[in-house]
């Protein structure tokens, strides 16, 4: 089969510009979701480590539930459920439809919640890897909780957490493809459209897969670099 590589270019028939923009949307959804996940994951890890019984139970329930439901279903729930809620609220206010919500927001929130459950475990593991002595030392010199978090806990825990966070980021990128079901024009959606209009599905889905591989590979290198940077001046781990 002959492929017309111009189709991926930036010429008049090329899908290059739209694919590039779609890749940008994929990265934007993923970054938003990942940052939301960092916030939720940190809070949840904090709740699991230092919370009282009900707080701990709530954090536990959050992780168990979000890890037990398919990602696609969570996105459906937020997108279609969100629309239902908005329509209901609009009806209560006497507004006329149709109502819609942003696929970007629904998708980013859904994936952020899923990622938060995974990141909570990463942060919790990283906290427990901090030598107890350094926490005791910080207390002895009279550090307050926030100062101790900023100077002692965060630097050490983040350094341990980087590989785990890298894995979470990779899952977020791949889950972001599911946001295409909301109609948001990210990479997956854009290649589906291109595949349909050119009737060359294999070519365009393969191109889409390559776009994802490029994004995951580059971010893999970034996380590897961050890991090396965070361990500068430390002896390498030995097995």
């Amino acid at each position, binding site marked *: 089969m002959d492929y017309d590589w111009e189709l991926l270019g930036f010429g008049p028939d090329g899908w290059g510009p739209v694919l590039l923009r779609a890749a940008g949307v994929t990265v934007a959804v993923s970054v938003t979701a990942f940052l939301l996940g960092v916030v939720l994951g940190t809070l949840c890890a904090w709740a699991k480590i230092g919370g009282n019984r009900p707080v701990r139970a709530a954090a536990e329930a959050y992780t168990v539930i979000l890890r*037990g439901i398919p990602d*696609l279903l969570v996105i*459906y729930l937020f997108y279609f459920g969100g629309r239902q809620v908005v329509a209901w609220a609009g009806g209560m206010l006497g507004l006329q439809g149709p109502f819609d919500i942003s696929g970007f927001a629904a998708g980013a929130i859904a994936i952020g919640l899923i990622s938060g459950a995974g990141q909570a475990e990463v942060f919790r593991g990283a906290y427990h890897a901090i030598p107890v002595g350094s926490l005791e030392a910080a207390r002895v010199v009279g550090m307050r909780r926030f100062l101790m978090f900023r100077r002692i806990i965060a630097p050490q825990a983040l350094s341990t957490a980087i590989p785990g966070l890298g894995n979470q980021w990779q899952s977020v990128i791949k889950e972001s493809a*599911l946001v295409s079901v909301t109609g948001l024009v990210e990479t997956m959606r854009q290649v589906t459209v291109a595949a349909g209009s050119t009737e060359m599905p294999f070519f365009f889905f393969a191109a889409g897969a390559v776009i994802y591989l490029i994004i995951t590979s580059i971010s893999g290198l970034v996380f590897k670099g961050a890991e090396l940077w965070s361990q500068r001046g430390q002896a390498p781990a030995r097995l």
Partner: protein
Amino acid sequence: MDFAFLSETFFKLLAGFPLTVNLAVLSLAGGGVLALLLNMARASGWLGARFADFYVFLFRGSPLLIQIFLIYYGLGNFPAVRESFLWPFLREPYWCALLALILNDAAYTAEILRGGFRAVPRGAVEAAEACGMSRLTRLRRITLPVAIRQALPAYSNEVISMFKSTALASTVTLMEVTGIARAEVSATYRAIEIFLCAAVLYLVSTLLITRALRLLETRLSPWLAGNRA
């Protein structure tokens, strides 16, 4: 709360449950076999190792959804595929989804198994060699049992993840739990109730699977019971 509607929905969704389980079980079985083959390829030499690396890179680096679409919509592009004996299978959404799930699962499982194989003590393999065991006997009696025990905690996560991934089969028209839920929502517009019902079904299943795998873990490695956090 409309309990009559909820229970009616629940039973409708339950009709898709066998297909969900079918996809999960077969993809894990197929993926497991393929993962073992990938690890054997890796052990066979430089070329095999590069192939395994590339396979894992390809399937772990791209989303499962695109893999499903590539197989379901893409393969039919090639006249060679359409004329081959495989076409009666590859034009069915069921086989396409299953194939994508198997190929995807194999990549993740191969990595988990690789970690397990690394944990097999060298001495045990040498002892087996010294006893004159063949490669296959060694795999069956020595390396695989140790590697599987070692890999089971990580593999449990993969089982759960695969069970959840079967929901993506609904994107190629398969009527498993998520597919039915999606169709019911288009028919009734009661998204929250229906999707929550489906979520409960998945949640209960994953909790049961987790419990069962933990039991299996303690059964296979009783000396570790209670030591694992």
